[in-house]
């Protein structure tokens, strides 16, 4: 094996993975900071502002604290499952980022293309959906192995919630795939050069946003945690770094959902209504940087929306949540899918 092929198949991907992991971990930590800060402003208080300028070092201090804390395993717990459950939660949340194109591919010199994605899988969406649905195992295992009732309740709720909302979520994503005609994420982004899918697929976008909130266990759908009912839900018995894993996994999922929504519905790194071909005449690095910035802005706006929801709404009840999933979102998602498929067929004829 030559050095070049070794680099192509092992070296570059590894470098990309390491960079991505670092960037994502950083983003996730600061998502927590942004959320706490924004919640503070929403709630007429200040939020964390003591550690470093504007409290910017707060996430690092929090991480340090959690690392130094004792890792308690309850006497009733099943130690093996209890130990590995957080890994089940955090790995899928981070792996999902592998297929997301954050910026337009960088074209250098002699037609060499460097895509800003770890691996642009041709069945990217399917990969993403299957990987993210693995995350529920982390929650179910945690509840099951904790040997305590509140986590058990949390995990039971989580299992049914994930099951109920995965279907409308998948159906709404399916309509995007129909529109774009490809499972590959970069193709989907390219298909939105003229118009972000959020406008023609407004129904699917709505279903996706609601299901995504439910998938990431956040208010108004944060029943698996439901602190006022289930204390801490599935992670009640966790402490220290294992708790931090769940915490990070939740926020990594939030960031992932923001990135996916940006790619699927908001046109990814494309600037709305401006075709990229006109921009490509500029310096290639500049174009990529611009694309990255556009992607970031869209994702952060979506994140802001997420936090806004959290600051505003009360929590749904378990049965109401399931009813919304099956009786409201699923029919809408199905209707939308049929509409999109019908229009697409009619146009093709």
């Amino acid at each position, binding site marked *: 094996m030559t050095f070049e092929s070794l680099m192509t198949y092992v070296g570059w991907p590894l470098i990309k993975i390491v960079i991505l992991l670092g960037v994502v971990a950083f983003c996730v930590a600061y998502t927590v900071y942004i959320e706490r800060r924004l919640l503070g402003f929403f709630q*007429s208080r200040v939020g964390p502002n003591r550690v470093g300028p504007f409290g910017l070092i707060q996430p690092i201090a929090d991480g340090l604290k959690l690392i130094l804390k004792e890792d308690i395993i309850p006497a009733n717990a099943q130690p093996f499952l209890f130990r590995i459950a957080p890994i089940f939660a955090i790995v899928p949340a981070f792996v999902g980022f592998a297929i997301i194109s954050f910026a337009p591919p960088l074209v250098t010199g002699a037609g060499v293309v460097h895509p800003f994605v770890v691996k642009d899988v041709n069945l990217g969406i399917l990969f993403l959906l299957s990987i993210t649905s693995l995350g529920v195992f982390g929650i179910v295992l945690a509840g099951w192995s904790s040997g305590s009732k509140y986590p058990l309740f949390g995990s039971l709720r989580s299992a049914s919630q994930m099951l109920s909302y995965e279907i409308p979520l998948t159906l709404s994503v399916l309509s995007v795939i129909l529109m774009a005609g490809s499972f590959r994420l970069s193709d989907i982004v390219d298909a939105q050069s003229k118009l972000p899918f959020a406008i023609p697929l407004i129904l699917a976008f709505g279903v996706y946003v609601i299901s995504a909130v439910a998938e990431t266990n956040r*208010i108004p759908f944060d029943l698996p945690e439901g602190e006022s009912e289930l204390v801490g839900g599935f992670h009640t018995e966790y402490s220290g770094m294992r708790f931090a894993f769940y915490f990070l996994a939740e926020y990594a999922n939030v960031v992932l959902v923001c990135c996916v929504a940006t790619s699927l519905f908001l046109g990814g790194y494309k600037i709305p209504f401006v075709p990229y071909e006109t921009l490509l005449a500029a310096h290639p690095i500049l174009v990529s940087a611009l694309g990255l910035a556009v992607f970031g802005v869209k994702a952060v706006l979506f994140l802001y929306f997420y936090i806004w929801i959290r600051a505003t709404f009360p929590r749904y009840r378990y049965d109401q949540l399931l009813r919304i999933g099956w009786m409201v979102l699923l029919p809408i998602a199905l209707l939308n899918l049929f509409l999109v498929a019908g229009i697409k067929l009619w146009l093709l004829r």
Partner: protein
Amino acid sequence: MTTELREAAGTSPLRKALETTTMELNFGPQHPATHGVYRAVLQLDGERVVGIESIIGYLHRGIEKWVEYRTYTKATPIFDRLDYVGAILNCHGYVGTVEKLMKIEVPKRAQYIRVVLDELQRIANHLLWLGTHALDLGAMTVLFYGLREREVIMDLFEAMVGQRLLQNAYPIGGVRLDFPRGWERACRNFMAELPHRLDEYETLLSSNRMWLQRTKGIGVISGAEAVALGLSGPTLRGSGVYFDVRKCIPYGSYEDFDFEVPLGENGDVYDRYIVRVREMRQSLRILQQALDGMPEGPLMPEKLSKIIRPPAGEVYFSVEGAKGQLGYYLVSDGTDKPWKCHVRSPSFINLQGLEKMVVGGLVADVVANIGSLDIVLGEVDR
């Protein structure tokens, strides 16, 4: 499945192995939604509550016994520790009882000042209740808004009596000091501001579909059941029963003021919520009238000995506390210490309604119902 098949399955060993039982869940004493060290043992069938047993006493301090070893004056501050969210109302109840026992005529101005402080305390209590109740149901922002307004009231208390939470506001016989300079203006500013704030909360909650779904038709208790259980205060009025001590057994000049008693219709969590929100608006009306019609005069009765030594006898006196009818029963043997003291604490009695409200509901409704009762464990356990 036909009946025979079902019967066959009923006796099969598999069926026996899969037999289901209810699950016992310890809800508290350390639980974020029990508002203190209240413990409920829930019997659950899945998420459905089939039984609830309240276990209280974690905050028992023996206040009623403690009082027997203190003089009447020295006993006053301990009653602030009953319902520490509505301390002034507790204090009013106790000093009112002693005044009734000794037949002390409280000067009119002192009575009006007491009304002002009482109603401010009621608003502060309801604001904190609103915030925590909303937080229980997941709407966290209302808590901070409520605390923001409550802070102004706390500042008013601090300016008036020197304390913010446990004020020990009234001495037996009247009030200690008049309003400090500028206090009335600050109070009126707050009164002008609060209705808009209440509108804001109602925008966040009353007009929110999720809030309505979580509260309407939950924890229904009929008026007759509520009366039979001895509930009082907003919890009773949520079921549509007209009973407010301020109206029905007027005390401390409340008969001078024109205000309404808000009533609910269905006796569910939503009605108990809306009754309290409307009560805050009515309290503002009372405040307005009390400040406008403040009479001049002394703050303490002229003839009052330093040592309080009531005649032998017994007395019962109740005020409309923040949680309901707050009554004090005192027995005096003619010495300077009460022979016996009993507190009819509304939180304790309202808690009896919980079983009726939660059985048949879901776990999440238990939280909503405990919140809607507005219990304070200091008062439940005493």
